[in-house]
């Protein structure tokens, strides 16, 4: 677990800076005495977080299920699209511009439409999350598939391997690094997407919690919810890095024991 020690050492400067910022913020808001509903000091936010914890937990769970389900769907959609578009060049030419266009439409404008289409429940949130998450995944997966060595495929064809075996032994492992690059972006998008979806209308979720806090001028609760979003996103991001580490053991073998004849 040397890796974790070095990660901790590397993030120390940014942690220090964060600490400094929090202290400065606390001091400034005490000295200036700004009204709480404008910018509450960190200590007040912390209290709101503790006091609201049971409620926040319920809403976090709702947000996480929307993010998780949407992300899973996005992975399936992106993988299918990437494989199809890699296989048939004309489909690639036809679909690629559409993919980019789909990303230029502001999600804020699209989300209400999805809400009308799928209702206030989980489905509309999943749709928003899928929409924002599939793009970084698909683009990375397509890049990965384009990098696959055709000679490696030839070699397996000579061995008379089945197409399924060729995909499993060549394409799948070669796109893993690309997949995880995309996934790192997608997981952070997924929480944000879920919150936006909830913001525009839902029964539960951190987005709903935020709106309610705002409407009742509980700025400290709003900030507590933001804090939860940040922490959840960071944890998901770290989990993705961990999964990448676990999924590609060949990337972390030591080379210092290289063998000579």
């Amino acid at each position, binding site marked *: 677990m040397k890796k974790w020690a070095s990660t901790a050492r590397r993030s120390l400067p940014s942690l220090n800076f964060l600490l400094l910022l929090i202290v400065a913020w606390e001091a400034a808001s005490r000295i200036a005495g700004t009204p709480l509903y404008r910018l509450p000091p960190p200590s007040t936010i912390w209290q709101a977080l503790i006091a609201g914890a049971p409620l926040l937990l319920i809403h976090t769970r709702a947000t996480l299920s929307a993010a998780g389900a949407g992300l899973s769907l996005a992975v399936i959609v992106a993988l299918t699209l990437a494989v199809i578009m890699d296989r048939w060049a004309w489909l690639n030419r036809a679909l690629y511009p559409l993919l980019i266009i789909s990303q230029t439409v502001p999600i804020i404008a699209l989300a209400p439409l999805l809400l009308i289409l799928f209702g206030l429940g989980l489905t509309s949130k999943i749709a928003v999350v899928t929409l924002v998450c599939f793009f970084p995944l698909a683009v990375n997966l397509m890049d990965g598939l384009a990098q696959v060595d055709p*000679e*490696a495929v*030839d070699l397996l064809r000579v061995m008379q391997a089945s197409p399924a075996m060729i995909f499993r032994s*060549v394409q799948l492992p070669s796109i893993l690094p690309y997949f995880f690059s995309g996934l790192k972006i997608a997981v952070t998008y997924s929480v944000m997407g879920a919150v936006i979806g909830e913001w525009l209308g839902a029964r539960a979720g951190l987005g709903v919690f935020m709106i309610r806090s705002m409407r009742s001028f509980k700025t400290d609760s709003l900030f507590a919810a933001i804090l939860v979003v940040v922490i959840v996103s960071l944890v998901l991001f770290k989990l993705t890095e961990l999964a990448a580490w676990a999924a590609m053991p060949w990337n972390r073998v030591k080379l210092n024991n290289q063998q000579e004849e």
Partner: protein
Amino acid sequence: MAEPNARLLLEDVSTTYLSDSLRLPVLDKVSLRVGEGEFVSLLGPSGSGKSTLLKIAAGLLKPDAGRIFLNGAEVSGRAAKVGYMPQQDLLFPWKTLLQNGALPLLAAGAGKKEARSRVSELLPVFGLEGFEGYYPRQLSGGMRQRAALLRTVLIESGLMLLDEPFAALDALTREKLQEWLLGILSRFKRSVLFVTHSIDEAIYLSDRVYMISDRPGKIVQELSIELPRPRSRTVVTAPRFMAYKELLMGSLDLH
């Protein structure tokens, strides 16, 4: 038609690469033959179309003209089951030595356990015992080539197509592996078409050598090597070896 005892027969194979609007003629009416148990080298300068010819022989590439027979049957449009070893060792970096070696067996429908034990049996023969759990980038160049050869031998076929397997190695390792390859072949009894751009390597290893010209590749010479087997390293100083070498160098200058 195909001779009954030919492992591989190419008849007037020509091919041209088309990239954009450019036509690049690569092979020009190449005919060659690898008999049962024979070690045949294809010798030629880089860029003469040797790798292309191997791909055609393996059924991975369709030539513009000509016919290919493997074990008497015509190869047509689909990958043939031959011991093809591409120019780069092409061990998969995400698989251990054992898993790489097991690929041909798994492709042929063997179970995981059976494949494992068959590869493990061969590891000592290839000087790779104890390294089954290593990933390719942990192995030296010579070990990687031996691992790739192990994988090639496990493709169930009487014919091996080897594309410059030793070209990337240092001279010493290279000579060691040439000798070792001859030993391996006397054990596994395969016919071989061996691509190289080294005259010494071709003479030392082969029963017969085809010399291919600069692009577009044409066979400019065919030479039977009559040196006794088993061959030791000292054969390279024999007068006959020198004579062959002179002959091949001569035809290289001419074309």
